[in-house]
């Protein structure tokens, strides 16, 4: 087994992994990203098909009685396969509490404090609200339905540039219109020195231990802060 030592190990390559990987790489940290799935080059690997054989090699699902969700296993995580809708969480989301009245989000985290980071992420991903003249017939029909029911209806914000309307967003955009992580965070992080290992899975994570000797000579074992062995 090959042993690699790095300052920062990022496990996974989706939205949550690539943003910190990029920023840490940019400030000079030695960053290694590992991804259990295979490498993806959108123009080479994405297909316009509804073949379950193709879709299921990337899209996986998990479910329980309470919740079910779909995720993707590929370099770039779900960014290559999501629907590109990129909305900011409304303020009310951050005020949610659990059954005991405790706030679900950490203190100081709310919409106002996150807005600068939303700005940054939207700029990176090229998120824009679609223009009035870009609303397709299906969207107009839905908006008309809402209008007739007495509701409002807003245009979504998308991470897309130059959409050709082929309709195969979820199978991966072969035109490069979907602004997945392959076009922004990942290449920028690589340019800043980040290394990426695909087909590499983290099986276990354990803290690195070291001896601590007190002045009285007693010996204890402690874990080094933020130091881990990953296999």
């Amino acid at each position, binding site marked *: 087994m090959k042993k690699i030592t790095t300052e920062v190990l990022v496990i996974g390559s989706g939205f949550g992994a690539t943003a910190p990987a990029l920023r840490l790489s940019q400030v000079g940290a030695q960053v290694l990203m590992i991804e259990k799935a295979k490498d993806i080059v959108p123009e080479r690997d994405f297909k316009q098909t509804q073949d379950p054989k193709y879709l299921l090699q990337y899209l996986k699902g998990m479910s329980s009685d309470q919740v079910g969700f779909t995720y993707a296993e590929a370099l770039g995580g779900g960014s290559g396969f999501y629907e590109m809708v990129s*909305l900011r969480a409304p303020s009310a989301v951050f005020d949610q509490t659990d059954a005991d009245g405790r706030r679900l989000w950490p203190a100081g985290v709310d919409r106002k404090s996150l807005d600068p980071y939303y700005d940054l992420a939207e700029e990176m991903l090229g998120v824009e609200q679609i223009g009035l003249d870009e609303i397709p017939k299906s969207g107009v029909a839905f908006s008309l339905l809402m209008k007739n029911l007495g509701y409002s209806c807003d245009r979504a914000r998308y991470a897309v540039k130059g959409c050709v309307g082929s309709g195969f967003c979820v199978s991966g955009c072969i035109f490069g219109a979907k602004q997945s992580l392959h076009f922004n965070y990942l290449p920028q992080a690589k340019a800043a020195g980040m290394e990426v290992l695909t087909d590499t899975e983290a099986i276990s994570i354990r803290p690195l231990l070291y001896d601590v000797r007190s002045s009285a000579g007693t010996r204890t074992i402690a874990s080094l802060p933020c130091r881990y062995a990953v296999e």
Partner: protein
Amino acid sequence: MIRSQQSDDGFVTRCVSRKEFLKQVAVASGFFFAACSPLRVVFKAYPRKFEEDTALCDCVLRAFVTTVIPGAGSDEPNLARMFTDDYYPFHSFSGFFVADLSERSADLFGNERFDQLSLAQRTKVVEDGLNADATVQRLYRGAILIAQVSYYPGIYDDTKGCPLIDFHGANYGFTADEMYYPNYQALLAREATANGNYS
């Protein structure tokens, strides 16, 4: 050898030899085996020609698809491919499925070749399968689903599409007239946000 003995309390006891017992068990198992679809599938208890003769199997499966999907052309190259594609679980049942179609064709119309029957006759055969025991019912329903999943989205030919459902296939270029309404602004509902994000 079977011998009968009358006991003191009047009961007649049949003494069956080991050989006779095994014979009876074998016959009973045979009847049970023949009548039980799951066992026939597991033990592949159907004529082997339906797995070995791929040309026959393909003809029958094509005929099945054209029966359950009206308008499907029997000469389309990938029409029955999904039934035998080893990626999909149905492939391990395709031999039994073809054998079952053939048996029902022979029982109902005296012709084992399902693909040589008329559309009305083939429809009857499929209906017969859909009304059979639970295992066969599930198999036929699965086969119909597989046929639909394979045919309508054109999974083996991304660019082909399917005219039956007005699906033009991948990379179909939409014109502006096809994509947008000219008078869209009169139809849209009121917007509640300035930029698509709720505050």
